[in-house]
């Protein structure tokens, strides 16, 4: 059977957009896991949190968690693509590296980190074009472009979060692309949309759309232009899918009214016989 640490880790990694704190510190996980009798605890003793840090780290990197740089209002991305050593990550636009506290999703110990890459020009042009595109379509987003795979390729990331816990909904849009720096012929990647609605219920939208785009030239403009078109096409396709599901599968599951357009005549479909069976329709 899976250990408490494994199970608690799966809860952390399954946290919906904007609800990591609710799933963990916000009493749920701590109440479930911490007051356990000794045998259920980890070998370290009372505190299970240190053994859960890898789960927080995986969650933050996969979900493209954003953290505020110290002394700045700017939110930068945490991902596997801009990872350094010892919980440090770097941001190419502000040319800063920073340390991340994975359980609290905060950044500290910022340092200057000049971009050192043979593709520095491409990365800077991509950041410029991506910034224009992102600001036009994502009301609250963070983005990043990083050298990856020993400086042979670049990763292009966009994450857009909207949290409205007072109205019981939260959402996240993530786009993760990779493009070889030498011959920028094909952009590959994935778009994910996650929405959680939880007023008197628990409803989740989760999508994954693989993307493969051929790019006419290796210029930053053409790469971002192709990405922008693909994102627009996907958004339109998703909107169409909502309509198709509502008109198709959903309608087929349960009718709004019977085919007769009449509600059920309950006295006739069971009640009469019962009344006669028991007491001719009078007693109780």
């Amino acid at each position: 059977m899976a250990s408490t640490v494994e199970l608690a880790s799966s809860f952390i990694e399954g946290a919906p957009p904007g609800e990591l704190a609710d799933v963990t510190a916000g009493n749920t996980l701590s109440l479930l896991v911490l007051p356990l009798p000794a045998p259920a605890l980890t070998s370290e003793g009372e505190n299970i949190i240190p053994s859960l840090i890898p789960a927080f780290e995986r969650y933050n990197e996969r979900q493209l968690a954003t953290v505020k740089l110290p002394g700045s209002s700017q939110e930068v991305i945490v991902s596997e693509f801009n990872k350094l050593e010892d919980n440090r990550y770097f941001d190419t636009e502000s040319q800063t590296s920073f340390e991340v506290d994975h359980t609290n999703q905060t950044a500290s110990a910022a340092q200057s980190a000049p971009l050192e890459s043979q593709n520095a020009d491409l990365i800077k042009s991509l950041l410029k074009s991506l910034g224009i595109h992102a600001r036009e379509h994502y009301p609250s987003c963070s983005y990043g472009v990083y050298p990856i795979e020993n400086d042979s390729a670049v990763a292009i990331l966009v994450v857009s979060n909207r949290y409205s816990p007072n109205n019981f909904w939260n959402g996240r849009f993530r786009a993760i692309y990779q493009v070889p720096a030498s011959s920028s012929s094909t952009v590959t990647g994935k778009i994910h949309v996650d929405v959680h609605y939880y007023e008197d219920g628990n409803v989740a939208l989760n999508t994954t759309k693989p993307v493969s785009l051929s790019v006419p030239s290796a210029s930053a403009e053409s790469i971002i232009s192709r990405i922008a078109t693909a994102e627009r096409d996907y958004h339109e396709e998703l909107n169409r899918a909502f309509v198709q599901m509502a008109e198709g599968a959903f309608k087929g599951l349960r009718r709004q009214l019977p085919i007769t357009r009449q509600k059920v005549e309950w006295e006739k479909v069971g009640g009469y016989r019962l009344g006669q069976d028991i007491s001719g329709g009078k007693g109780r």
Partner: protein
Amino acid sequence: MADAQFDSALDLLRRLSPRDTKANLQAITSIVPDLTEDLLSSVDQPLEIRRCPQSNRDYLLCDYNRDGDSYRSPWSNEFDPPLEDGTVPSERVRKLEVAANDAFDVYRELYYEGGVGSVYFWDLDDGFAGVTPGSQSSGEWDSIHVFEATDRARMSHYKLTSTVILHLAKESEALGEMDLSGNMTRQVEVDLPVESDASHVANVGRLVEDMELKMRNLLQEVYFGKAKDVVGELRSLAPLSETNRDRATQLEMIKSIQK
């Protein structure tokens, strides 16, 4: 502590993916076994279907027709696997249960044109209670209506708690994978006149029918309206500079009219 843990468990299940409720429930109860019975009776899970060996008809498995590892068929009133001393309803309440199964069978055919439905009743000190689980299209739609009827003079007080679990998925090259899953719960309490036991079936029937219509509309609104709107909040199809310009122009117009 136990109450707080129970509330925490419910809150956690309300947040984690509704697709994985069964696995998450197992995970929680393996960490805190004391919560098992309480959670099983308060967390709705997708329904499973079993064939009744006596009547050869399908019925639904839920916590309300379970006794140990056996489930009671509403058609035969027998447990499968057989139980020597399984809890069955009193004679009066079993008669109500049989009548309700007949009535809800008509209801199911009229609204679902298929699927599987069952009704289970049990005795209470001052009345009775029941549940009408319904399942359509192998786990895409499960509805679970639990009610209590408390006897009063020529009236009965009904309390109905309804949950619908709806799983939808779509996949294509242009769309990729799309999963829209979840559950919603609503409650209603009402006093209704009762002339005979027959009134109970009609009263409960109408309550469930009205509630299910409301919930169907609510699900439609949340799944295809709200979820789509939130996607629109995350990403704007129209360029935001245009949207902001339009909004500014509108504000200017309103201001100039007000002057």
